[in-house]
């Protein structure tokens, strides 16, 4: 199952923070896993963001 640590997009938080990038089709499985492991998280959100390694914008 794909999972990737990522900075939290600003659309979802006004602060630094980490998120886990997951595939949409894995949401139900991961939600269940998180409940079983009693993990605390704010929410599972979707964003229409695309990674583009040729955008060449570095901040």
């Amino acid at each position, binding site marked *: 199952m794909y999972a*990737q*640590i*990522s*900075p*939290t*997009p*600003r659309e979802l*938080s*006004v*602060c*630094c*923070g*980490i*998120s886990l*990038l997951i595939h949409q089709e894995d949401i139900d499985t991961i939600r269940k896993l998180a409940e079983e492991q009693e993990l605390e998280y*704010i929410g599972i959100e979707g964003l229409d*963001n695309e*990674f*583009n*390694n*040729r*955008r*060449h*914008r*570095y*901040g």
Partner: protein
Amino acid sequence: MADYHQMWKDLGMDVDNHDVLCNVLPGAIGDVFLSQENRPEKMDYFDFVLAEVHGVRPAELVDFREKGGKVFGTFCAYVPDEVIFAAGGIATGLCAGSQFWVPGGEKYLPANTCPLIKAMLGARFDRTCPFYRLADVYIGETTCDGKKKAYEILGTDVPMHVMDLPQMKRDKDVKKWAEEIRELKALVEKETGNEVTPENLAENIKKINAKRSALKRLYDLRKEKNIPISGTDTLLISQIAYYDDPERFTQMVNTLCDELDQRVKDGVSVFPAGTKRILVTGTPMAIPNWKMHNLIETSGAAVVCEETCTGTRYFENNVDESGKTVDEMIDKIAERYMGINCACFTPNTGRFDDVVRLAKEYDVDGVIDVTLKFCQTYDIEGATLEKRLQEENIPVLRIETDYTDADAQQLKTRIEAFCEVIGE
């Protein structure tokens, strides 16, 4: 998810302005790092540190200071962390690699100053970097004229100690650097209230040597035909090396290397077969400056080695651990650090030898010499380096750039053309 706003406010930061930086970094991180395919799983630690770059480590430093600890901000690979940690202090990097901080620096410096120095002052005076707020004392060094004068300006706002790095490498210069390290020792002892002893100095020489050895192990894995990790990911690790707790960092790099060892056994590469191998040399690439690596590695090439201060200069050659007294150990520390080949030295033929040696060790198809704009020493030295590489039949491309995005497409065209003609 932690909310660091209160911590940033308590540190006296301009939180509203800092939010502008926080707004753009996640997108850049996504484009530069998360877009890569088949990254090692154990990059997750470094992704975590990056995602929380102004949160988790600053929070540790806040906690350390609340318990009476002293934090020493450093700008350069010449400052010996061993001495600072031996006195119970923490050394943290303060170099700044974002265009975001440059306009703030231009309020105090001429526009024709290198972006790294301008960003340093912008990060301090605009109050938009927690590390600049957390360092009790800044430790500078005389590695270029721009930095020397910038330290005078920083010194009006924060306690500043400048180490006088000799500009030649004669025996008397090594002795002079040892004296500078003794002065640093006296300073950190006074600031921390802790004595540097043979025991704690020996312990911390071993600790920092272990960190360097872990980075050497990581770099050695990039010599493989199948390259198990991208240059962009490795650059991030080198940048984090300046900030992270050294023992934790060493452990995490070695854990990553265990995974990379397995990748090598399995013949896994993050690049297609035949990808051109590039050695990057030149000026430091402070976090979050990933511009050149991103450009190179999206132009059909792989960066397999960096002969920079965020590369081999940082970790090559360990401190000799045979010293018994503090004086002997400081002499050994001075010898190790004076072995770094920075363009501030004259002559600096050792750097040319290093680049040629590394080009062969890493089996590169070409060298890209990257100089930050207005960095005179590396810029001037570049022509001599180019001549030496041509004599060795090693293709070289010289690039001068800054932190802006404006020249990205022009650079990409030049890099793609270079990569097409090399290694044929």
